[in-house]
């Protein structure tokens, strides 16, 4: 994952639990990297290890931690680093999500070596849609839920996220019914 994720996690942990906790997280993850470049890729294992230890040290269940981190990502990290870009994606949840998915899927094309999740939106209505999350990685579903919640908060609306079916066919395909 990009250093931005790790830096975001660091910011999340440091702002909620103090720099000392983050230093402990680094120590527990057995890494001597103490400065992440936002635009450089780092190993997934390291990011997972950082997340797991951060959850552990903050005494928060992993799911709940990922959830909160997802929200933080949208509201702080993405806003801080891609704020203007996000603004161009729409001024309402519906447009935003549609454009975001479009943009995201375009970005994927720019980095052929990356294995990012694929997003899809179907059954689009004025106040609802079905959001598809297709990933080769397991365990980040709660992060996705956090992201979606964050999007809701970005537009100051209550986003209802209803987990629908899930498929497993080499990839994890999760369906969320979103309504607001």
């Amino acid at each position, binding site marked *: 994952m990009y250093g931005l994720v790790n830096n975001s996690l660091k910011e999340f942990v440091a702002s909620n639990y103090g720099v000392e906790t983050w230093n402990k997280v680094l120590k527990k993850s057995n890494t001597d990297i*103490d400065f992440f470049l*936002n635009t450089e890729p780092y190993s997934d294992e390291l990011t997972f290890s950082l997340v797991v230890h951060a959850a552990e040290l903050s005494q928060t269940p992993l799911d709940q931690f990922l959830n909160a981190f997802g929200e933080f990502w949208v509201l702080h990290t993405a806003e801080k680093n891609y704020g203007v870009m996000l603004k*161009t994606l729409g001024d309402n949840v519906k447009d935003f999500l549609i454009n975001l998915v479009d943009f995201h899927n375009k970005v994927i094309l720019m980095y052929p070596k990356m294995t990012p999740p694929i997003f899809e939106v179907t059954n689009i209505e004025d106040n609802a849609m079905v959001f598809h999350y297709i990933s080769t990685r397991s365990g980040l579903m709660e992060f996705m839920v956090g992201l979606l919640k964050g999007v809701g908060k970005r537009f100051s609306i209550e986003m209802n996220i209803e987990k629908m079916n899930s498929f497993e066919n080499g990839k994890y395909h999760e369906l969320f019914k979103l309504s607001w």
Partner: protein
Amino acid sequence: MVNTRPMKTNYLDFDVFEQLFPFYFSFNQELEIVSYGNSIGQNIGQINGKKFHNVFEIIRPYSEGIPLIELINENKNANFLIKFKSKENFILRGNIYYNQSSNTYLFAGFPWFHSIEEFHLSGIDYKQLGSLDPTFDYLNLIHTHKLSINDILSVLEIYKKQKSELEKLSLIAEETTNAVIITNKENEIEWVNKGFEKTYGYSLKEIVGKVPNDFLSGPLTTEQSNYEVLDAIRRKQNRTIEVINYHKDGSHHWAKVQIQPIFDEDGNVIRYFSIEEDISERKKIEQELLESKKLLDYAFEASGDGVWKVMTGKNLSIEYFFSNAYKKIFGYDDGEVFDETTFQNNVDHHDFEEGTRKFFSLTKNNSVFIQDYQIRDKFGNEKHILSRGKAFEFSAGGTPLKIVGTISDITVLRTLELEALTTTNRLTKLIENLQTGILVEDSSRKIAIVNDEFCRIFNIPVKPIALIGMDCKNASEQSKSLFKNPDKFIEDIEINLKNKTTHIGHLLEMNDGRIFSRDYIPIFHEQNYLGHLWQYKDITEMVLREKSLENLFEKEKDLNELKTRFIRITSHELRTPLAAIMTNSELLQLILKRDAQASSTTNDYDIYLNRIIKEVQRMNQTLTELTVVGRIEEGVEAFVFQQGNIVAYIKEIVTDLFSPFSDGRELTVHTSDEKIDVYFCKRMLKHAIINILNNAFKYSSGKTSPILNLQKDKDCVIIEVQDFGIGIPPDEMNQVFTSFFRCSNAARIQGTGIGLMLTDYITKAHGGLIHIDSQINIGSTFTLKIPFINNSKKLLSCD
């Protein structure tokens, strides 16, 4: 005007074209806009029929003065940059093609932005971009690059900051003469300053990469200080540590080392900076102070006295300190909690209140605290302690801020005081009830104690207690008339008071005939004269009794002398007629024997003459013994002591007189030594030996022969004579050495009653002893012990 569709193509559906290029527009030869894409319409509004130059401005290629059509023809394959005149920052980038069939020009391209911010400001919607429009992608890329550049700038910033910090530190480090070490985060030396090199004698080259503790520690470096250093490193903390560091040459000094981690922006340690100060001098003074304090503490602890301290602490709270020795007096161990509450609980309520009152009334002018406390220690033992202290520091208002003191266990002292008081009371009682008159005066002759008997003796008609405190100088003067010699009475008192030495048994005669013995005993305490005691004993009766006894003694003495003289005279006076009787009897016997031989007749008178001669001999013997006794008593009989073999001497006597005895029995003699040298009087001891041997035969007539044992002891010869005769009745045993005493069971046996008395005399004159063991009808054993050398006074007088 209607936006007409100028062309149709077999290759590309116009809808697809417009989806691809929503920012397209076309114009005719008159440069009138004939059609345009949706995204232009949404952003600029209706432009159909408008002249090109009213809506657009060509930025590239340069078009100054060149008509548009010409420009297009000249730059057929070139990219055009076209700006919307009505909207700032809205630039299109693409190519212009000529369509022969419709005789129009077609622009196909995309909007052009330098940044996502510009895109945002343009107001164009993401959805308005063409489906193949790479604008957003390249803007995204540009943005990502920007983020990368920001990363690099951040790193640069951190680096610059650290560099400047280090430069500052190294500037200080270079300048200072104190030793400075910079280590990496593993605490390995990266750099040391000249101060370090000079102090420790190591060059940077020698020690770079080493951990400072590894080569600065030495035998005197404490584990604790090493631990502190490592702990500071481990905890990434600032810390000041006092440690003994060793130099390269083996010498060492006390250093105060300040360790400081250097952090990066995220709080990660990247280096450690430590600077030290030589504190050897201060340590030396501290050590000396500590030693003095230890000595003081030791002195206190050794004295067994406890130390206490009361201080006004923070926020005016009162802080108490009790030393271990203090706690010990209360029965508490070092580790046990002892505070002011414990103190209060263990101290007598009244003493505590009194002490507290005194304590809080201490001032600058009244700064000394003294209080006795009765306490009960942890084990319930009652004790007395004396607490003494002094207030030292005072507030502006004069209230003590620090009071320091000691406590001593004075239980023994108090107990002794109590005992002394009890003893004094008892003694006073005893004196009051004594049957002798007692008068105790203090040093100024005031009466301290006087008893009933004293009052009775001198007819004083009041109770003794009424006399306490009275001056005795006047009393002596007033009472002197009671004595036979009043002036002497006063004079003696004055001599005693002057000499102040004990004077016992001073006799005083009273006019009424009573006689007193008076004792004077001065009373001293640690050489200080406190007073004196007079004791008066009425000895009138005793004196009278003594006088009559003296008379009796004189009378007895006279009688004894008379008796001795009588014995001497009698024995002497009787000897002469006895000698005449003896001589005449023997003469008569001879004459009768001769006549009988001549007449050949039997001598019928011989038997009677023999009896006469035998009795005369016995009488003579008695007289001899009496004479000896008389001479001894008169002191005229002299002993002549000479050294000689007593065994040979006794054997000779035995041979002459007892081998055999007159009844035919032989004396059995046992001796372990043939020669025992003893100083003895040959003439006198013979009387004793013969007497004992004679008695042994005489009182065992018809029984087994007596036995004589002679044996040498450590410093004397033991002469033991054992017979198997009638024995001596036990109750008469101690009278056998009395003159003229005869045992009750010996009445029929002839004896003088003087022999044993004489034997006793002679034995004692030799410094010896005589001892008798006897049982009735079994026999008696007489044992004489004669020392080799006579050490008695008599021997000296004899010599």
